[in-house]
């Protein structure tokens, strides 16, 4: 998959589509990454993208599902602080998929 920056320059990604340089991310890049996963970004998707980017800013790491869902419960309320809410927006592996689209490193998997 090839991503293009605003200046139409190809943006390097790894074999799974994660950005090689986190500074290359932009909302337009997020749209391209989402579209490659057949996801249409709605305002509620963007709220989760902002949430995970905020998490990265605060803690310096990409969250796994458990801390991500707990963080969502804390920041967005109990309705959104549930795995099912994330799965509905970013199916399959929400933490991994969301960190990719949000231009963050892949979450560590300690298990």
């Amino acid at each position, binding site marked *: 998959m090839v991503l293009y920056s605003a200046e139409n320059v190809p943006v390097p990604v790894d074999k799974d589509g994660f950005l090689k340089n986190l500074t290359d991310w932009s909302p337009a890049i997020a749209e391209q990454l989402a579209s490659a996963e057949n996801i249409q970004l709605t305002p509620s998707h963007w709220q989760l993208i902002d949430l995970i980017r905020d998490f990265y800013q605060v*803690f*310096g790491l990409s969250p796994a599902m458990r801390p991500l869902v*707990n963080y969502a419960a804390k920041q967005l309320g109990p309705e959104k602080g549930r795995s099912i809410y994330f799965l509905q927006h970013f199916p399959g592996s929400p933490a991994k998929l969301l960190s990719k689209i949000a231009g963050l490193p892949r979450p560590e998997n300690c298990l």
Partner: protein
Amino acid sequence: MEFLSIFSRQAYGNSFARECLDMALATAAFGQALTLVFVEEGVLQLAQEHSTKHGDKKPHSGVINALPLYDISQIFYLEEDALKWGLTAAQLPEHAIAISTDKYKTLINNAQCVQSF
């Protein structure tokens, strides 16, 4: 089963700190009752960085700061060891609570499984 994880080394120059943390995260992920105690050099793992830039962070200080989000809420450190290293409560995470040596002994006695790294 009550688990107790003891962090006694600093995060640099060895893998013990990371391994202890990984064990703790795995234990919590399986829904076990878990308590963490930071003692001796281990209290240094709790010390907050002055800079928040990612590049300056210690290997796992982000996770240490996020521990409550991993459903780990029983986090203690030995007050006398923090003092030895010149650390005040203000330099340590809010979710970490200072304890005395007596309380530390109680925690060890109450746990069924103690892992010390």
